[in-house]
Every structure is written in structure tokens, then in C-alpha cells.
């Protein structure tokens, strides 16, 4: 009995240390906190078209479609780095509906950017005030979300995409 009582603090320390070690080994990056919307329904939104503000995209268009949503801006340097990759994604997965959301960007700058660098998106939304970004929990550009056919957000990436992320993280979800 005496021995058991003496061992208890040691066992408790071991248990706590195991929890802490397990958490540390998960490689969580504090600059990239998990999305609160993962596995949740896509927010209810109505996005005006960058090229024609009288046209809108709503949640109805999201039904039964695999959708990639990319928040970008003409002033965002990392967005320009990842921009060519969306042409590759579109070529590899023609059934994927890719939405670009121009976030808090002067309209003319966005139009010039897409004219100069090309437009890989099936639809380009214009989020002048950042309200669409707020609904998605965007706090830095670029941010990319993948929405499944049931309208749930199944993946989020903060920062520019690269080939490794696309092939290891996104493509398996598309298949």
C-alpha cells in the first residue's frame, strides 16, 4: 500500500507528460489554426460576379458539385505564385467547379490582373467589403477551400498552394 501511494505522483506525471508529448508531436502550426468550418455546411452566401455585378452565385449552385473556392487579390503576392496551378487543377479535373473570390480589391486592378495572368476560374466573385471572406473565416490571403457534393467544407488551406499540397492533400479528396 505504501509503495502504491508513493508511485501515484510518478504515474500522474507520466500520464500528463504523455498527453503533452502527443500534442507536441502533432506538428500544429499556430500560424495555421484549423478552420472552424471544417465538416460544416458551406455558409449561406450570395456572391456578385466580378465581370457583371448584376449576376450572382448562391448556395443553390453548390448542390451536387465538387467545388474549390480560392480567395485571392491582385495585391497579394503569394496569390500570384499559386495562380498558374489552378490551370493545372482545372486541366487534371475538368469536372471540378473552381470559384475565385476577389477579396477586398479594387475592381479594375482585379480585372487587369486576370486579363494579364489569365483566368482559371469558372466563376469569379467580387467581395469588395470582405463579407464573404468573413463568412468563410478568412483572415489572410490566399485561402482555399474544398466543398464536397453535399455542400460541406472538407478541406481548407491557408497560404499559397504548391504541387505537393495539390497532389498529396487536394487530389485524393477529389477522387
Amino acid at each position, binding site marked *: 500500500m505504501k509503495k502504491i501511494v508513493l508511485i501515484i*505522483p510518478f504515474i*500522474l506525471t507520466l500520464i500528463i507528460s504523455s498527453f503533452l508529448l502527443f500534442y507536441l508531436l502533432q506538428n500544429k502550426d499556430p*500560424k495555421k*489554426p484549423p478552420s*472552424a468550418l471544417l465538416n460544416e455546411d458551406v455558409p449561406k452566401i450570395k456572391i456578385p460576379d466580378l465581370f457583371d455585378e448584376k449576376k450572382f452565385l448562391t448556395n443553390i449552385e453548390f448542390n451536387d458539385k465538387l467545388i474549390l473556392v480560392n480567395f485571392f487579390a491582385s495585391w497579394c503576392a503569394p496569390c500570384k505564385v499559386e495562380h498558374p496551378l489552378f490551370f493545372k487543377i482545372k486541366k487534371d479535373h475538368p469536372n471540378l467547379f473552381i470559384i475565385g473570390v476577389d477579396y477586398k480589391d479594387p475592381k479594375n486592378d482585379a480585372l487587369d490582373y486576370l486579363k494579364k495572368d489569365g483566368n482559371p476560374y469558372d466563376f469569379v466573385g467580387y467581395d469588395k467589403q470582405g463579407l464573404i471572406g*468573413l463568412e468563410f*473565416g478568412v*483572415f*489572410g490571403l490566399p485561402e482555399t477551400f474544398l466543398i464536397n457534393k453535399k455542400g460541406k467544407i472538407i478541406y481548407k488551406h491557408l497560404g499559397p498552394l504548391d504541387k505537393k499540397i495539390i497532389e498529396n492533400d487536394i487530389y485524393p479528396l477529389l477522387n
Partner: protein
Amino acid sequence: MIFIPYLTENFLKYFLFLLICFFIFLFSGSTNAYSEKDLKKISSKLRCMTCQNQSIYDSDADFSKDIKKIIVQKLESGHTEQEIIKFLVQRYGEYIVFEPQMNIKNYFLWFFPFVILAISLIFLIFRIKKN
């Protein structure tokens, strides 16, 4: 001579009427007006997601400015502090709040130090009694 008291009496009535109107105007909008104190109180509890060691209140980042605008809009439309924080947590996750929320996931964080303290005290008492 009669004219002067008449003017004075009317002037007083008119002044009283203006005074009542003034107080009605003063308090009519106060239910939805936000105060800097409310903004500071709420935004100090929230983490700036781009400058993560700073609160929304202290940070000058664009993200923080946007969140402050949202807080002001929500306060002006009559939302409570809890509703505003819940709105932001739904979009940015619990990470946006400095203090861990009281829910099942965080019970370990909140209560485990007290559990350890209790066990240690019991152990200490046991040892003292034995000695």
C-alpha cells in the same frame, strides 16, 4: 405691464417644452448606441489572427480593423457580447478567443489543475497524518 408677465410665462413654457424634447432625444438612441468601453471590453478578449500575440483591440492589422467594425455594427444592432463572440467563434474557431471556452473539450484545461491540487493536498495530509 400685463404684457411682460405674459411673455415670461410663455417663455417658461416654451423653454420647458424644449428641455423635455432635449432629454427625449438624448435617451432615445441610447439603447443601440455602442460605447468605446464595450468595444474595448469585447475586442480585448479576442486574438488578432494575423498578429497572434496581440488582441484585436491592440492590433493595427487590417484583420483587426475589420473585426472591430463588425463588433461596432453588431453592438449598434443590439447584439450582446456573448452573441458577438459566438458569431466570431463560429467563423474563426475558438482560437480567436484568448480564454478557452467552457465546454466539454476544454474541461480538462479548466479543471485538471484543481484536480492535481486536490490530489496533492490529499497526499500531503495523508503523509502528515502518518508522520
